[in-house]
């Protein structure tokens, strides 16, 4: 019985590459990983947004309307619906003048119980140190 922690650190802008979308879909896939593992073993992801990556968290993304693809906002909501541990770097939000109310911070309306946390970079650094593996993108 063991738990391995994976730190997904999203530093890329949305849409120009698939990096942030795939980080979220991979993190979410932790929900079904048990089929490959022994009883009691777990993979626990934490998702951190830093740098330009914080722009993935903006509310109101209309990518589905204009391009017919799921928005990154929707993936972010799904990650919260599944109660993943999500952190957004406060300094990077402040630098870009993004207020908390512009962000996808919870998925309460669809049943998510865990909110994303806006935290100082030092908290994210601690996550990087505590996880077993780091996945930057």
């Amino acid at each position, binding site marked *: 019985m063991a738990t391995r922690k994976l730190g997904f650190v999203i530093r*890329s802008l949305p849409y120009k590459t*698939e990096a942030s979308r795939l*980080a979220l879909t*991979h993190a979410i896939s932790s929900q079904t990983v048990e*089929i*490959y593992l022994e009883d009691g073993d777990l993979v626990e992801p934490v998702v951190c947004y830093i740098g330009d990556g914080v722009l993935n968290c903006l509310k109101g993304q209309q990518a589905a309307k204009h391009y017919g693809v799921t928005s990154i906002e929707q993936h972010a909501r799904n990650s919260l619906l599944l109660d993943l541990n999500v952190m957004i770097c406060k300094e990077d939000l402040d630098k870009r003048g993004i207020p908390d109310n512009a962000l996808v911070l919870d998925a309460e309306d669809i049943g998510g119980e865990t909110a994303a946390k806006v935290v100082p970079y030092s908290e994210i650094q601690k996550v990087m140190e505590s996880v077993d*593996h780091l*996945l930057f993108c």
Partner: protein
Amino acid sequence: MGKLTIGCFSSLVGSLSLDFAVKLSEAAVQKGHKVDLWLSGNGTMLAKKGQKAFKDYSHLAKKVQELLATGNFQITACEACAEARGYHKDEMAEGLKRFSMDWYLASTFSADRVLHIGGD
């Protein structure tokens, strides 16, 4: 001897990141390590069979087959990423597997080291 899991999302031709992933796998296997290579996003382009070798383009199909033959190398493509690009099951190169993304996470569970090449 350890296990290295590499995830690569970069396209087959152009970025040379897939070339990096395959050459790093080769070097690791030669030193007695085990390697799992996970292809997602545009990285799934490597999984398509029938790639013609041209001098101007990366051609990794042969090296992948050599690595598979060692028995210490697995290569798996993301099923949805492949289908979205029109690579169906019968178009997969020999020896490559297809699974959903949780395969990658399971591979990292038992890995000593993970290298995630997450962009194009």
